[in-house]
């Protein structure tokens, strides 16, 4: 049975000729060597009726054999503060924090540690599945003293925890106090111990929050035994603090009379948009976050009166740490490419092959940064690729009710399941159940491959690439990230910009760029469905990372917690663009209305299609039925559907030139469009469950054409491209490339 064993990623997703891109590869045992080549991707779908896989070798110095090796990935989020003068005088010790454990019964997990295990020096504060709070102190002789409170934590409750050590008396005090009040609570308590020998709590190891330090790797401490849950205001003090002092340190500034004794008190309610954690003590022992724990989350003191962390940062002074979050695999480089100066813009891959193994680390060569090299730009939705990258829903749930058939587990899915450390998609939940609101492309994204058998995002977009290649139409390739950085000036170099099949995730910069393009005479072909739907955020100092919150409503696999709808990266309100007053219908004429994943359907021409303004679209087409064929579900109207709606902002002059019909009951209207749930929400009963093909003119001679369906591009290949979907698409493209203004 085919077993996948090789995967990799690149440091960049879009490079211009002359620029460098590095590739990182990991092989499972059995793959001792692999061949690497740079190829231009032409076609990907390998299903029997599909166009098959095709590429074109780009002769480069990369081509050659490389040794296979397994590269380690250290997932899980935590904070690191370097050792420094702040911690030099430690003899007595106080530790405290408010904590919200989400998986306290899973295993022992570390809250705060500064420990040289080999020398037996330092301290660590833990949560233990049966003993609750546990303090470890170095004995100075290579061993550890351990003191436990003895009562387990309840999951998903806030506690104030503290531990003190008095070196003169040897007294150890532990306290865990539930911050909510229940009639019966057996999880709060205090414990007093006496150490027999003097502990050595000072050491020169770095301090970690939410993890213990396992070892140095790649020149940095690597966390292990990572805590799942929220930590707020961790404090380290160099003397034994009283109960009232511990309470006073929970929030606000460090009291003046405590300042000399506080080593560090981190306020997580500052610098939300960074990886920095700010120490508000005079020592300024700031730290750094690793692997994107979630910021801008509710703290223990959240009142519900304020829903925006920007307005009440002190109520959002917690960070949610996770043992399976990941930003950057940080693998060693296997090979790198300097893109030859004359490389045409296109979709490329580092193609890795070995015996029955292959992988395609896909990247884009954009045109030179100062110009376009074609009149048409294909806009690759890298934000959406990142959102779906490493989707685990199939192998973990195999949800037959989405597709109305048995789930087929691919070798790629089994490989992903063997590698939980590669992190999750934004459709998954973390190990503790928290929805995944950050993604990164600095890791193998197993399903974002041109040949992936789940025809979705890149693998589905290859249908469009194959069609453009077959048409012989020159096109540049640009990405969401290029557009986010360069703005509308990038798009304005083109007569026509064409989206891919499912451009669902948009940052503000991206939305603004597309909108401005359509308002300045540009021509936009929106070749898919459910586009311009969720708002996302990038961070300039965190390349390859993206944030998203699933707020209020929308078709979604999880929901953000109340009060956590604003994105930490930018402070912007997250969720549906519709909820920010920008509907897809106002941008492209149609917007997400229904989805289903069994049978695709077809479109029927409307009266609008006979309007003279739409004549160019149907030139040479006599058929009433459009797209009753296709490589995904057998029709051009399938998967996720968009419809026109005046109420949601479709321009009044827009023409709906074709409408789909006869969708199965597997197709159901999106929940944000439903008030009360009714029996009639399936495709057989609900006339709203349909896609609309929309055309409208925009100011200064521009125009928009929107297909309304993810399945559209899957129909282009039918009958060797000689079909009415292909013809319509070509008619529109030819007219959109014609400089003659629309009136």
């Amino acid at each position: 049975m085919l077993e996948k064993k090789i995967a990799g990623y690149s440091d960049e997703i879009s490079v211009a000729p002359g620029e460098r891109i590095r590739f990182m590869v990991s092989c499972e045992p059995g793959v001792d060597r692999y061949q690497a080549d740079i190829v231009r991707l032409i076609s990907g779908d390998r299903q029997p009726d599909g166009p098959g896989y095709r590429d074109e070798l780009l002769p480069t110095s990369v081509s050659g054999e490389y040794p296979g090796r397994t590269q380690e990935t250290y997932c899980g989020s935590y904070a690191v503060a370097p050792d420094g003068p702040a911690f030099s005088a430690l003899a007595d010790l106080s530790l405290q924090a408010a904590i919200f454990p989400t998986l306290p019964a899973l295993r022992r997990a570390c809250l705060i540690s500064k420990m040289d295990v080999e020398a037996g020096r330092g301290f660590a504060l833990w949560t233990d599945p049966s003993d609750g709070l546990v303090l470890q102190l170095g004995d100075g002789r290579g061993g550890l003293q351990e003191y436990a409170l003895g009562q387990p934590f309840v999951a998903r409750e806030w506690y104030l925890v503290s531990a003190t050590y008095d070196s003169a008396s040897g007294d150890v005090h532990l306290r865990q106090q539930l911050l909510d009040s229940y009639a019966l609570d057996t999880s709060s308590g205090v414990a007093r111990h006496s150490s027999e020998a003097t502990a050595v709590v000072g050491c020169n190891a770095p301090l970690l929050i939410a993890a213990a330090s396992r070892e140095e790797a790649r020149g940095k401490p690597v966390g292990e035994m990572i805590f799942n849950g929220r930590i707020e205001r961790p404090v380290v003090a160099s003397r034994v603090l009283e109960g009232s002092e511990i309470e006073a340190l929970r929030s606000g500034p460090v009291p003046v009379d405590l300042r000399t004794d506080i080593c560090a008190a981190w306020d997580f309610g500052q610098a939300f948009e960074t990886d920095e954690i700010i120490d508000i003590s005079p020592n300024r022992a700031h730290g750094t976050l690793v692997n994107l724990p979630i910021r801008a989350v509710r703290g223990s003191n959240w009142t519900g009166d304020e829903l925006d962390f920007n307005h009440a940062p002190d109520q959002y002074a917690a960070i949610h740490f996770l043992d399976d979050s990941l930003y950057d695999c940080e693998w060693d480089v296997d090979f790198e490419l300097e893109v030859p100066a004359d490389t045409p813009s296109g979709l490329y891959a580092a193609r890795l092959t070995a015996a029955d193994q292959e992988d395609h680390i896909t990247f884009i060569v954009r045109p030179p940064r100062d110009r376009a090299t074609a009149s048409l730009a294909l806009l690759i939705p890298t934000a959406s690729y990142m959102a779906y990258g490493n989707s685990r829903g199939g192998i973990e749930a195999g949800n037959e009710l989405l597709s109305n058939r048995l789930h087929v587990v691919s070798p790629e899915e089994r490989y992903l399941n063997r590698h939980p450390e590669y992190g999750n998609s934004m459709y998954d939940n973390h190990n503790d159940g928290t929805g995944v609101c950050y993604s990164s492309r600095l890791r193998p994204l197993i399903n974002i491959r041109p040949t992936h058998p789940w025809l979705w995002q890149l693998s589905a977009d290859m249908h469009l690439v194959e069609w453009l290649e077959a048409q012989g139409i020159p096109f540049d390739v640009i990405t969401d990230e290029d557009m986010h950085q360069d703005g509308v000036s990038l798009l304005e170099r083109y007569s026509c910009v064409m989206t891919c099949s499912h451009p669902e995730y948009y940052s503000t910069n991206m939305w603004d760029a597309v909108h401005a393009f359509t308002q300045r005479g540009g021509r936009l072909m929106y070749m898919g469905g459910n586009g311009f739907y969720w708002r996302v955020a990038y961070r300039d100092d965190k390349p390859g990372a993206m944030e998203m919150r699933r707020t209020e409503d929308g078709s979604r696999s999880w929901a953000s917690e109340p009060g956590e709808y604003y994105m930490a990266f930018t402070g912007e309100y997250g969720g549906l663009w519709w909820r920010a007053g920008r509907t897809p219908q106002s941008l492209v004429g149609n917007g997400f209305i229904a989805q289903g994943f069994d049978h695709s359907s077809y479109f029927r021409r409307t009266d609008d299609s006979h309007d003279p303004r739409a004549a160019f679209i149907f030139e040479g087409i006599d058929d009433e039925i459009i797209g009753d064929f296709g490589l995904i579900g057998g029709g051009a109207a399938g998967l996720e559907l968009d419809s026109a709606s005046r109420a949601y902002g479709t321009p009044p002059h827009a023409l709906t030139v074709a409408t789909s019909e006869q969708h199965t009951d597997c197709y159901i209207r999106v929940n944000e469009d439903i008030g009360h749930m009714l029996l009639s929400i399936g495709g057989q009963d609900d006339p709203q469950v349909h896609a609309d093909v929309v055309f409208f003119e925009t100011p200064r001679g521009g125009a928009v054409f929107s297909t309304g369906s993810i399945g559209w591009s899957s129909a282009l290949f039918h009958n060797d491209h000689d079909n009415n979907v292909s013809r319509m698409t070509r008619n529109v493209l030819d007219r959109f490339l014609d400089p003659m203004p629309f009136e």
Partner: protein
Amino acid sequence: MPSQYPIDPGRTDLAREFMANPMGPHSAALQRIVTRMRDTEAAGRYVLVTRVPYQEWGLAQLSGQRGVDVTLLEDQVFTSLEDAERAVFKMRWELITGTPLVLD
């Protein structure tokens, strides 16, 4: 919680409809049964595992746990997705109704 919709073991006419067209679309009455069958807990859910891409699939059950592989049912191998659907329908029919599905 999975669906509890009862399946009447006497409705072999619906089973016949499924066997004739396992990929659907199904009649409303058959779809109710199919929905009941497909709405199971993730742990133990039947899935197909690709043995040869687009040609051969083996029956397996999900672990329901991240990082834990599927359990392959080695004796159940199919060369068509339709036959796999038929086989699983038959197994689930007996599991839910307690009555083996016998069709002439």
